[in-house]
């Protein structure tokens, strides 16, 4: 995707969110058409079984309708804001419903999930910074942070899967997050 297309798409999405905040249902449909596949992908990673992901997706767009006035284009990109709503909604459902046995067993071997290539040519500056800063983490820290992000693992699930004490897992993640913050905030 060329940078100009991304910037144009981002501006259009921000404009539509402002219209959603003003009660424009047509704008919500445009936001949905532009973003629902991505948000559904987010929900499905966290809720892979049955129709839970669809329910979470529906709840997410209702939250978008109700909270669009809170979106501030100066603080976040619209797609990040939208994806975060979807992920938080899915996480709420996961924590409330519990992870099904089948999904849990299917992840029996928690491989170190490597993040996507964030350093590709057309990745924006934020992506390149995050890619560089993730590379600077210890492999343990990077792996569990990325796994937690995509799969919605809790501390105790991660500790069990990696067969380490809970305190060790907390230390990996807290140190990893602190390093990321130091690295990213320096870049800015």
């Amino acid at each position, binding site marked *: 995707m060329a940078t100009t297309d991304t910037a144009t798409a981002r501006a259009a999405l921000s404009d539509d969110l402002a219209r959603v*905040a*003003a*009660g*424009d*249902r047509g704008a919500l*449909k445009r936001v*949905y058409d532009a973003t*629902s*596949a*991505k948000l*559904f*992908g*987010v929900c*499905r*990673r966290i809720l892979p079984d049955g129709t839970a992901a*669809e329910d979470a*997706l*529906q709840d997410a*767009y*209702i939250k978008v*309708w*109700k*909270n*669009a*006035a*809170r979106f501030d284009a100066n*603080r*976040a990109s619209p*797609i*990040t*804001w939208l*994806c*975060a709503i979807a*992920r*938080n909604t899915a*996480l709420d459902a996961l*924590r409330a419903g519990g992870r099904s046995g089948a999904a849990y067993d299917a992840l029996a071997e928690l491989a170190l999930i490597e*993040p*996507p290539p964030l350093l590709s040519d057309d*990745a*924006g500056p*934020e*992506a390149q910074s*995050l*890619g560089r800063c993730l590379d600077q983490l210890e492999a343990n820290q990077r792996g569990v942070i*990325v796994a*937690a*992000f*995509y799969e*919605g*693992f*809790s*501390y*105790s699930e991660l500790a069990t899967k990696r067969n380490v004490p809970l305190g060790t897992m907390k230390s990996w*993640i*807290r140190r990893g*997050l*602190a390093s*990321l*913050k130091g690295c990213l905030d320096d870049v800015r």
Partner: protein
Amino acid sequence: MSDDRTPHPLAHDTLAGEFALGVTEGEERAEALRLMASDRRFAEAVERWQVRLGPLYAGIVPVDPPGRVWTGVTRALPANDVGSPAALRAWRGAAVGLGLIAASLGGVLLVRPVSQPSPPATIVTAPRPTLIAQLADADGLPLMVASYDPDTALLRIRTEAAAGKGEPELWVIGADATPRSLGLLPRNAVGDRTPDPALRPLLVAGSTLALTLEPRDGAPHVSPSTAPIATARLTLL
């Protein structure tokens, strides 16, 4: 917002990062959810973490959802029930019950969620009561219900359709009788906003909320251009 119950900033930001990442569970997660609702600095810290991690969403493969998801969204949007006879009768009644107000505001703001843990013993300030105002036009048709929580500075507004040209703009009028804008409002929607700190002292029982229809350009305006289409006093819930 009392500072004496704010956790140490470093611990605060660590919890914000863990919550944004999604690893929190049990009591820590409950604490984070409570802070999200009550502590704007915590919510902003969580948002900064979401922005830091945001590029990771590039790794999510899009999947087309089934069509019924959108159908479900449209059905769940706040209904255009202004014209329904039952709703009008309920509004025109002299006594508008707490239940109706709660229902019209989505039942969310007026009671604290059951799942929240009780506040820690170190809180010394009592929670301040919620204020409400219901604005109706000359015919008694409901135009707006507002609820304001002074502890969180959260103003929740539900607007119905407002006939007429222009955008609804909300004003607060305090003891000095000067209308000050709280911003434009969407029609037919429920929305939250946090008023400018300079305006919050005006949001007290006895102050008047007023609705006018204004041009979109130049909002929020310095003063209203027309007489209000509805006014109501803020009262204790």
